[in-house]
């Protein structure tokens, strides 16, 4: 095969959203009608602007203005056949928008992509799985949704089932499966796609570690069979194992494009992947819904300083500042604590503050939790903040890995302390109390005391 054949050509790709449109979207026909009567022309233009981009002249191309954002600005890159390329970048860098465009889920505003060969994209495992259907039925459903023909699923059915390890429950409705089984079955289907080009989002951040490894290996096989793989992940280990080349996105542009090792180390050392604090200035564009919007999220050290480096032994405060715009809703706030391998170390839910089960009054709140010292192990820690409705569980706010910090192991004064300086394995690193019982018994005569 000629390695110089391009499989994916991306040229001048841009995507524009009008957040104004989202804000003023009318949930009810009545309000839309009133508006339509009030200002028919403005309304028409606004609605049309979501899909009509003729008003973008050459001058204001990629320019952000009030209500207009460009998650992707003039992106160009090529991927050769048989190459595995990783895409990294912090939240909001444009990764997921790029994925959505490559997967044809949303069209680009400018530019063009040329893809040579059959494309499969995995933005999720188990898309279309239905609780009431049996495992067997779901394999067919999911397979065809991912672009397989029915006879292809027929052919691979036994392999898929074997890979998933749920043979015994094939004719049981999926609702009776454990979540692990469901994920394994779903992933087994995805792993048996045979596209020329495979586009993968962080679907690997599911399932148990052993199964993740199995999937990674399977993905590697995919790469070795001469397929082109485009892989988006936060998991740097997975990226460096799978990809020879990595593209770093920053602010909707390609910031770096080169050998995996170079880009990853640049990305990690610059701290580009880490943001210990996020703030929003404008309540109208701040993330959240009409009930609650978030002003800021930050990680603070014991001394109250926002820091990207945290002492392993000291407590860390995670703070979220938000504004309740519509009173009367009980809010469930929680933080997911995730490490750089995508493993959720723990989820901490507010069950103790005075507001945890009380309907909120409109106003500004700060929710803070202290993660004790001597709990998290060295490495990168990301925080995923979530706000849900206490009653309906509706998710008002969710931002995957919104902030992150590095836990470092500082040498302790007491050098004799075991494990004070060396790294030790484990997801967490608590300090438990040890006891040693000693019984001198009958001492041997020549024992060294």
């Amino acid at each position, binding site marked *: 095969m000629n390695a110089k054949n391009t499989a994916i050509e991306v040229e001048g790709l841009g995507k524009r959203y009008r957040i104004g449109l989202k804000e003023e979207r009318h*949930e*009810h026909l*009545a309000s839309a009608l009133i508006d339509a009567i009030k200002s028919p022309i403005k309304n028409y233009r606004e609605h049309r602007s979501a899909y009509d981009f003729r008003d973008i002249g050459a001058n204001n191309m990629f320019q952000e203005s009030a209500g207009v954002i460009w998650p992707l600005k003039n992106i160009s890159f090529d991927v050769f056949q048989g190459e595995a390329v990783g895409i990294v970048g912090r939240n909001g860098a444009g990764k997921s928008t790029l994925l*959505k465009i490559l997967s044809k889920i949303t069209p680009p505003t400018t530019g063009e*992509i040329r*893809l040579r060969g059959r*494309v499969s994209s995995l933005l999720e495992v188990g898309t*279309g799985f239905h609780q009431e259907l049996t495992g067997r039925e779901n394999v067919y459903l999911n397979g065809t*949704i991912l672009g397989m023909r*029915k006879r292809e699923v027929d052919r691979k059915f036994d392999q898929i089932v074997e890979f998933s390890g749920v043979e015994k429950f094939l004719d049981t409705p999926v609702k009776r499966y454990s979540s692990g089984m469901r994920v394994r079955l779903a992933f087994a289907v995805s792993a048996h796609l045979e596209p020329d080009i495979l586009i993968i989002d962080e679907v690997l951040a599911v399932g148990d570690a052993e199964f993740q490894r199995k999937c990674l290996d399977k993905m590697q096989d995919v790469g070795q069979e001469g397929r082109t793989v485009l892989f988006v992940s936060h998991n740097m280990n997975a990226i460096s194992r799978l990809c020879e080349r990595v593209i770093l996105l920053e602010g909707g542009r390609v910031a770096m494009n080169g050998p995996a090792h170079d880009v990853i180390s640049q990305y990690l050392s610059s701290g580009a992947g880490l943001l210990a604090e996020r703030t929003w200035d404008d309540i109208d564009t701040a993330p959240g819904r009409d009930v609650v919007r978030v002003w800021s999220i930050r990680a603070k050290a014991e001394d109250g300083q926002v820091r990207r480096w945290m002492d392993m032994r000291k407590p860390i405060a995670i703070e979220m500042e938000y504004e309740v715009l519509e009173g009367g809703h009980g809010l469930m706030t929680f933080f997911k604590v995730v490490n750089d391998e995508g493993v959720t170390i723990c989820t901490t839910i507010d069950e103790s503050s005075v507001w945890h089960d009380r309907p909120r009054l409109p106003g500004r709140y700060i929710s803070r939790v202290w993660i004790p010292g001597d709990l998290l192990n060295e490495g990168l820690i990301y925080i995923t903040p979530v706000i849900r409705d206490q009653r309906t569980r509706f998710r008002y706010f969710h931002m995957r890995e919104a902030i992150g910090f590095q836990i470092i192991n500082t040498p302790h004064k007491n050098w004799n302390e075991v494990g004070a300086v060396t790294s030790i394995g484990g997801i967490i690193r608590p300090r438990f109390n040890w006891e040693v019982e000693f019984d001198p018994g009958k001492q041997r005569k020549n024992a060294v005391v």
Partner: protein
Amino acid sequence: MTVIKPPSRWELIDFKELWAYRDLFWSMVSRSIKVQYAQTILGLSWAIINPFVQIILFSVIFGKVAKVPTDGIPYILFSTVAVIPWTYMSQGMTLSSQSLVTGHTMLGKVYFPRLIFPLTPIFANLVNFAISLLLLVAIMIYYQVSPTWALIYLPFFILLMIAVPAGIGMYSSAFAIRYRDVKYAMPFVISLLVYTAPILYSASTIPSDYRMLYSLNPLVAVIEGFRACLLGMPIVWKYILPGTITAAFLLLGGALYFRRMEKVFVDVL
């Protein structure tokens, strides 16, 4: 080679693409058939119970109490031939209009022709229709009505019966993505639509001056067609044709509107 480009403004259905996704279409249809009566005791018999209860209700109220003229046909028979296609169309419209909203999680995660969403319930619901035909056959046997040569036109009217909710479904599902009002409006729109077609009454009660205007309603064409085919009455094409033309426009317009809106579905969700 696949090329992804900014969308052009108006596009018609991409039949080639739809054909390439035919297996998926079939999976989606069979999924909704299988799921429909999951965890019900009566299962598929709901497909008969539903229209049957309606027929009994209509027969008592409009046949016995109000004594609506039916051109000499027993009221039960008269309403059965109309209620069965009507049930299909009303269910199709309701399910189809909600198809994108209920499937929105899939919308953001995977691409396949979006048109499959509103069309799935239209085709899946044909199973219910086929089962409810058994009820029709039973009632026809009871009244000893034997089909005539006019039955050969039935497939045409079945196609028309599919086209009407398909057209409306494409419009309303695309509309429902932005305006959730559709969900609440649909039940009463449907309960009003019953009266716009000769389901409970005979079309011959419409003054002849207004008959052409009345026939523009595609539901009229379907119901009149079913009644004529099955009960062996003459098919009056001049009252069928206007509704057929409306249905064709609905289908075409629905497809155009849907294709135009599908590009922004994900962005406005």
